[in-house]
């Protein structure tokens, strides 16, 4: 086994990446260390584009959502002129939160401490007792601060704390193709976040959720009760025919650059967008046939098949996951200590969806995802078991991630190619090593 010792001039690496031997190992210190977390806050969360919210959460001018984004309290708002904005939820006077409600519609935010008031475009509206300041006291720079950068791709809004970061669309790169594919479910090209937020903690390092979100190797073991449920509900779950496969259908993994990656699978589990399974009920058939016909008419047969008959779990580095599987979820998570993360998940659907299709989408979501779903609680359990086991990290140092290493050509969803993609990029940002 390799050890951590490196020569003095060589930067430390958290991975052993040896294509000759077909071995890829991860130093478990990366998953347990508060020092590593401090470095991540600086090298990753303050450098990368971090998902803030979706424009549909701000339907009217004056709407706001207050939330924590990578641990930062922010206000995500549409100002009175309709512009989408993001502010730090921090009073310029003494630092208190200026917005304590989860969401709402306001023209102004006011601090409860000394009463400083800000307009919904962030500018300072009023300082109580301003005659106590010197004449011509300059208040022009005392509006709410914003993250250095705030940009959107198709109404997915991200912030970045690094003024010198590349533009969001450059950062997303090839990942935008997969975001487009999700949005193509909507005839008008508009998706919306649905009501109801799932917010739950997992007692595990945040990077374990990145891995878990795209790791199809674990499905037959971690989720055997979900597979049983699917079988009980009339979905054929046949054992794989081809060698190397662990799922009934073939699936791939793609490195999308900049640390982003996705699985891309032939669907077997049903999709509310136009792949019927008995679970949805006979009464759903007619409407789903119509939804399918609209896809074909708008996109052509091939692309319609791509939207309806394939599913994918997309990771936008570092902490945004879009699961386009049994339903569509937006899931983001951030560390609260090295051994704990806070997860937020929303459901996403086409804006023009009928009441019945919307209800079916939400029901399908709950068959798999979320804290009461038939699969996610077992993922959470698996990650927490990893974290508990890692208490032995200093004497059992390396996690084994070599599955499928050396495979030529197309990479399988059930291999660990895409996990290695994540760790190589993470290692590069943390150590300056070449990926």
């Amino acid at each position, binding site marked *: 086994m390799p050890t951590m010792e490196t020569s003095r001039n060589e930067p430390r690496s958290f991975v052993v990446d040896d294509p000759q031997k077909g071995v890829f190992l991860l130093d478990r210190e990366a998953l347990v260390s508060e020092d590593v977390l401090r470095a991540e806050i600086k090298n990753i969360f303050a450098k990368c584009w971090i998902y803030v919210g979706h424009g549909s959460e701000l339907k009217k001018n004056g709407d706001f959502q207050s939330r924590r984004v990578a641990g930062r309290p922010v206000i995500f708002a549409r100002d009175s002129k309709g512009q989408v904005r993001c502010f730090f939820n921090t009073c310029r006077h003494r630092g208190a939160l200026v917005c304590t409600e*989860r969401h709402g519609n306001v023209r102004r935010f006011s601090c409860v401490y000394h009463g400083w008031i800000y307009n919904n475009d962030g500018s300072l509206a009023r300082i109580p007792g301003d005659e106590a300041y010197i004449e011509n006291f300059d208040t022009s720079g005392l509006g709410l601060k914003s993250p250095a950068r705030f940009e959107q791709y198709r109404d997915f809004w991200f912030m970045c704390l690094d003024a010198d970061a590349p533009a969001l669309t450059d950062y997303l790169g090839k990942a935008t193709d997969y975001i487009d594919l999700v949005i193509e479910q909507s005839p008008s090209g508009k998706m919306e976040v*649905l*009501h*109801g*937020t*799932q*917010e*739950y*903690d*997992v*007692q595990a390092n945040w990077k374990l959720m990145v891995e878990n979100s795209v790791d199809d190797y674990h499905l037959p073991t*971690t989720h*055997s*009760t*979900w597979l*049983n*449920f699917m079988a*009980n*509900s009339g979905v054929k779950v046949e054992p794989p025919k081809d060698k190397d496969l662990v799922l009934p259908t073939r699936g791939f993994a793609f490195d999308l650059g900049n640390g982003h990656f996705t699985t891309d699978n032939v669907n077997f589990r049903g999709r509310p967008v136009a792949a019927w399974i008995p679970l949805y009920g006979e009464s759903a058939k007619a409407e789903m046939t119509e939804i399918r016909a609209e896809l074909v008419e708008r996109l052509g047969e091939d692309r319609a098949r791509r939207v309806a008959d394939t599913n994918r779990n997309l990771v936008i580095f570092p902490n945004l996951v879009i699961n386009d599987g049994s339903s569509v979820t937006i899931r983001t998570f951030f560390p609260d200590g090295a051994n704990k993360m*806070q997860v937020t998940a*929303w*459901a996403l659907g086409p804006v023009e969806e009928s*009441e019945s299709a*919307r*209800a079916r989408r*939400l*029901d399908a*979501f*709950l068959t798999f995802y*979320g*804290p*009461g779903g*038939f699969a*996610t*609680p*077992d993922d*959470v*359990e*698996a990650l*927490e*078991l990893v974290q*508990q086991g890692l208490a032995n990290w200093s004497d059992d140092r390396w996690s084994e991630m070599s599955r499928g290493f050396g495979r030529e050509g197309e990479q399988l969803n059930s291999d660990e190619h895409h996990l290695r993609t994540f760790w190589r990029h993470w290692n590069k940002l943390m150590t300056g090593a070449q990926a």
Partner: protein
Amino acid sequence: MSAQADTLADVKVTRAEVEDFFYHEAALLDEWKLKEWEALLADDATYYVPPNDDLDGSHKDTLYIISDDRERIRQRIIRVLDPNCHAEFPKSRTCRLITNVRVLKVEGDLVTATANFVCYRYRRFQREFSYVGTYRYILRKDGDQFRIKERRVFLHAHELGRLGSVSFIL
């Protein structure tokens, strides 16, 4: 609302009867006697846990934590009793304290009743989980028996947060 509600006389029900039923149900759930618990359900029973941030939203347009019809409840029981339901193996130990029981409404044979609860959940090596909330039931009364028509669980925390999962029958 029951279709019969217009024609049937309202059943008579006391708070003590409803309390006894709640305590009996809580014991079955805490002892993981889920097949016996299932026998308390009406054929059209539903089980809902709305999201913490939208307790009044409809499950048809709002993302719930749990929204089960009768068949889904049956599947949930199969799942949580399976040793491969890792989130509940070994089984959590739970203890429910039920209080503030109120009969809110009687319409025909349907009784709407609420109760506050604390459900403590323990897993080995893990923190204690305290689920605090309100139950709202629609019970169908047939003679001196109740059957659960709707079971709705409102969690009071602003977010599920450190409670993690709702992997057992709450």
